[in-house]
């Protein structure tokens, strides 16, 4: 392994994008949750919903801010570190990203201001519109960026002219074979991630014996969503797998740890090794089960990694383990959802002792599953950036090794600082929990609020 600007750029890209996706994974779900809460408050006028809105909007503001700043970094890295990629794909991917800015980013960013600072300035209908616009904007944004990524995974509707990609059919460029399943899988993942966090936040107060009407509502809303979406995610994920198998069989072979071609088992635990071209198996199903899962027929022979020349194979270890962690967490989510629903139906939820601890343990599961899912998808696409057409190695910018090494160190330092502070502030809010009464809410006022600013100013004054 040589630490040249190529490897360093890959590390930098992987780190910054994995950092970025943590926030969309949360804000996409939380945006919709806030829209639902505000809608419920406006229609039922139950203060629980308003209190919950004010609680989660503070956390949303923090997470959204981190999502925005880490996203701006992403949009410039295509040029700084992957300039050849930019030249070659600009005529195809450019419009998709351009439309993302025009239809989503401006919408989110403009109405975010109204959402966060407009409560006393605009009427309830307009404020709700702003919340809705922000939530909707995150979904539009996800659609465009995933269209771009899906084109890189399963390119379609293009031709090559003077060594560059050009579009011949825009509908095919946008709706590539892997786009529908990827969008469904990612949006569901974002909703699950948020629901698990909300559930954990409610569980935290129950563990501390501080459950309130608000936290009880939180817990029930989250359980309902998880019980519904977690099983659905299994189905969507399975469909994703089928698409991947059709268009990127080498990726599936890597995720499954298959080397030889033939009827395949499903390896449950093991250790794939690129050098010896084999997987050390600890636990696996009978041969044929893997073929049945992926191809729907136990007797179908499927290709193993050795069917491809070495230069065209993805590395196997990361896709293999990232995929297993994601699926394992997905199964755990189904368990948490069903167990919670069971307690709820039996009216034992509020008295449960073990369950709230369980929700604490699974609160970060969504984030982990999302990052692992992307690791499996993106590393499994290697050695290509545009699958089958443009190798990652040929997409790199002509920049100096030292420049990238410096920026990578800078990125690591800046991101860890910002992340620690953000996590601390979000953690404090989560620990304090939603307030129940109007006065209490004012005391822990929203960011930028006069009361809070006054209090903070006093603290600083000597």
């Amino acid at each position, binding site marked *: 392994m040589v630490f040249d600007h190529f490897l360093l750029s890959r590390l930098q890209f992987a780190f910054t994008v994995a950092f970025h996706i943590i926030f969309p994974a949360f804000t996409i779900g939380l945006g919709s949750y806030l829209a639902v809460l505000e809608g419920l408050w406006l229609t039922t006028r139950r203060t629980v919903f308003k209190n919950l809105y004010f609680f989660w909007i503070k956390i949303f503001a923090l997470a959204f801010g981190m999502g925005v700043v880490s996203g*701006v970094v992403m949009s410039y890295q295509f*040029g700084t570190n992957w300039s050849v990629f930019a030249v070659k794909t600009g*005529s195809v991917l450019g419009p998709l990203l351009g439309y993302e800015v025009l239809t989503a980013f401006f919408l989110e960013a403009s109405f975010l201001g109204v*959402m966060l600072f407009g409560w006393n300035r605009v009427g309830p209908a307009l404020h709700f519109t702003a919340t809705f616009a922000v939530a909707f904007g995150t979904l539009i944004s996800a659609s465009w960026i995933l269209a771009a990524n899906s084109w890189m995974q399963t390119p379609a509707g293009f031709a090559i002219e003077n060594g560059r990609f050009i579009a011949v059919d825009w509908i095919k460029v946008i709706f590539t074979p892997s786009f529908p399943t990827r969008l469904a899988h990612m949006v569901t993942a974002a909703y699950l991630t948020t629901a698990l966090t909300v559930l954990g936040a409610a569980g935290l107060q129950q563990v501390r014996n501080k459950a309130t009407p608000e936290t009880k509502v939180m817990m029930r809303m989250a359980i309902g969503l998880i019980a519904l979406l977690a099983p659905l995610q299994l189905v969507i994920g399975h469909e994703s797998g089928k698409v991947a198998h059709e268009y990127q069989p080498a990726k599936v072979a890597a995720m499954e740890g298959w080397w030889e071609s033939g009827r395949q088992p499903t390896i449950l635990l093991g250790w794939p090794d690129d050098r010896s071209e084999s997987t050390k198996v600890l636990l696996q199903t009978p041969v044929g089960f893997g073929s049945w899962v992926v191809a729907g027929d136990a007797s179908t022979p499927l290709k193993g990694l050795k069917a491809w020349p070495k230069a065209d194979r993805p590395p196997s270890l990361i896709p293999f383990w990232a995929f297993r962690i994601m699926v394992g967490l997905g199964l755990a989510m189904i368990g948490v959802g069903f167990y919670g629903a069971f307690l709820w139906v039996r009216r034992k939820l509020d008295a449960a002792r073990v369950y709230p601890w369980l929700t604490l343990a699974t609160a970060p599961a969504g984030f982990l599953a999302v990052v692992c899912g992307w690791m499996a998808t993106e590393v499994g696409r290697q050695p290509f950036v545009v699958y089958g057409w443009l190798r990652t190695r040929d997409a790199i910018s002509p920049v100096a090794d030292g420049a990238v090494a410096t920026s990578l160190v800078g990125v690591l330092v800046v991101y860890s600082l910002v992340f620690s502070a953000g996590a601390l502030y979000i953690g404090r809010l989560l620990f304090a929990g939603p307030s129940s009464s109007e006065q209490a809410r004012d005391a822990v006022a929203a960011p*930028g609020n006069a009361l809070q600013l006054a209090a903070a100013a006093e603290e600083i004054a000597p």
Partner: protein
Amino acid sequence: MSLDLPLIWAAILAVAVLLYVLLDGFDLGIGVLFPFATPEERDVMTAAIAPVWDANETWLVLGGGGLFAAFPLAYAVIMPACYAPIMLMLGALIFRGVAFEFRAHGRNRGKRWWTFAFSAGSLIAVLAQGFVLGAFVQGIHVKNQAFAGGPLDWLTPFTCLTAVSLTLGYALLGSAWMVAKSEGDLQIKARGWAVRLSLAVVVCMALVSLATLVVNPAVGARWGVGLTGINWYRLVSLSPAPLVGGGALFGAFLTARSGRSDSLPYLLAALAFMAGYAGLAISIAPFVVPYQLTLWQCAAKDNALALMLVGVAIMLPVILSYTAFVYWIFRGKAKPDHAYG
């Protein structure tokens, strides 16, 4: 008749970048002015920009994303050439961006640190943008349609000058914005900043203009100024740009000092920026990488430009109207109480 799509796109991007400079310019400028304000004044200053900074910064994303989409080759040459300042800018923007929220959550030391981060982040981001501007104007080393220079090409006396000038320029926009958005002592202070900064910016603009003629002889020739003599006809016919710029800055100086208008200083400072921008356009059009690659050489395929043009034709008016609407909602003097709850 077929449209000259690359030319239209050059115009669209020029407008996007101009809007970026005029809008994010004032909120970055306010960050630059932070050290000169008291803690209470700082809270008013952030309140004056907190609802809009994110939308302002989105013009930067449109600028970068638009360059990628419309002129991929220019994007691929300029970004690696300005690798260090761009990375620096992005890092600095992270700090100042999160500081809006973090400042309100930090307790004693936390709040002080994020106040510092907001200010330093703003300053570094502006300086970095000034370096990018300078590197762009002085010329980029291009071979085989790719960047072929060294990692420190962007750092020269000329780019240092543009960095300092842009910083003072943004600070002027920031102080003029505060004249419009504040009252009482803070407004008096802001007027003082605006008075001094408008003078400083006149000097800077003159210095940068002269230096540009020297650093890049091709630009000099554009303006009719060369070693062999001066083409007066050319120079005079192009002189409205610098004259309007200088006049507008003088106007900003006068209106800030007289205290009769709250909004004119910002509008005049913005006019000065537009004039400087026009001067830049005169110096480099039709190149996107000055004197190396023209906009037609760098343009994306026509069908991509056309598709995006449809998007812009529909979305830009929509975006501009809701942007105006949001500014209208938050019109009037800023108080540190624009909050929900």
